[in-house]
């Protein structure tokens, strides 16, 4: 494959021409595709909430996919601060900014489970079975250990052998009904996170 003069001229000419034209800015015009990513919250549904972590009580806006139509399962896709909120004014701390990963944590519990005495595993049970068994255990313990009168014969009506540790982030409504139920049972070993 030897090159003859004509071929040689051709190769040189095309190469040189192309490169110099290109260098002078005559390259074929590139298509400028839209580079900005789409704004991901367009058409999501906004719900107001309060951060469940510390007691600053920052306002949140939760954005969920779906418009609430019957055939859509809403899923929260983004959470950010509520700019109208007079305390946090839209800001969130690192925990609050990462709330999405709390909502979608792989370690969220999904089903009632029981670990039987001595067992090394969880067994999934139905709500009915779980609540039924717990109620039976509670009643047995209450009936056996309820104290109506103390040694001095004073009316005391207390149940000390079962205790209840209430939450720190559950709502007032949950707390209120918890208190109502727990006290009606006569429980005194009742506490919450305020203590620690």
């Amino acid at each position, binding site marked *: 494959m*030897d*090159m003859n003069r004509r071929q040689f001229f051709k190769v040189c000419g095309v190469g040189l021409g192309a490169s110099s034209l290109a*260098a002078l800015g005559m390259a074929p015009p590139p298509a400028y595709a839209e580079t900005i990513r789409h704004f991901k919250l367009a058409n999501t549904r906004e719900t107001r909430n309060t951060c469940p972590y510390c007691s600053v009580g920052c306002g949140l806006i939760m954005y969920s996919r779906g418009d609430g139509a019957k055939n859509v399962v809403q899923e929260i896709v983004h959470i950010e601060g509520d700019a109208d909120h007079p305390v946090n004014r839209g800001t969130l701390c690192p925990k609050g900014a990462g709330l999405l990963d709390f909502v979608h944590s792989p370690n969220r519990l999904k089903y009632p489970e029981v670990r039987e005495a001595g067992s090394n595993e969880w067994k999934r049970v139905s709500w009915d079975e779980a609540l039924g068994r717990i109620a039976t255990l509670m009643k047995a313990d209450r009936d056996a250990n309820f104290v109506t009168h103390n040694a001095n014969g004073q009316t005391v009506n207390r149940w000390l052998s079962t205790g209840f540790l209430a939450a720190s982030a559950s709502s007032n409504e949950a707390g209120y009904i918890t208190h109502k139920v727990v006290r009606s049972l006569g429980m005194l070993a009742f506490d919450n996170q305020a203590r620690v």
Partner: protein
Amino acid sequence: MNNEIERYTPAERSNHWAVAILFVLAGLSGLALFHPALFWLSGLFGGGVWTRILHPFLGLAMFLLFLVLAIRFARYNHLNAYDRQWLKQMDDVVNNREDRLPEVGRYNAGQKLLFWVLVLCMLVLLVSGIVIWRQYFGEAFGVGLIRLAAVAHALAAFVLILGIIVHVYAAIWIKGSMGAMLYGKVSRAWARKHHAAWLREIGRK
């Protein structure tokens, strides 16, 4: 008596052309990244990403084969006093007045110089290429060194390409050279004209 002399063995020729092909591929892929005006060359390699992926491997392969080639030819490429005289008469060289030049051995001084330039460029390209090869060595070097290597790589490539342009042109210009590398043989007349000392030397053997 056979009028033809073997100048390159089949192995040498294969080696040379393998390096040449890899040079073209590495060169084109490198040029695609060298200047925006040549980015279209990346299309030859399946796009920018493939160009980025292939280029270092092409370069590495080129280097390894070149290394073999260089080892084969290194002993013919020692410069001597005749070579210096040859270089001084560059004007005679370019104007085809070979009769005025000192007698040339297997390679003339220009070829020898080119050989060493190629060796140097290849080494620089290899070392600097590894330094800027992000996919495998991204964490290994500091940014200062990487920047230096990028410049060195571009510079060495530039020099190499210039050298090869000269080399290719010389092959076109000096009739008979192309055949030497294609078929391995040259005529005695060709040898006497361009490499008289070499002809005498093989005659003695």
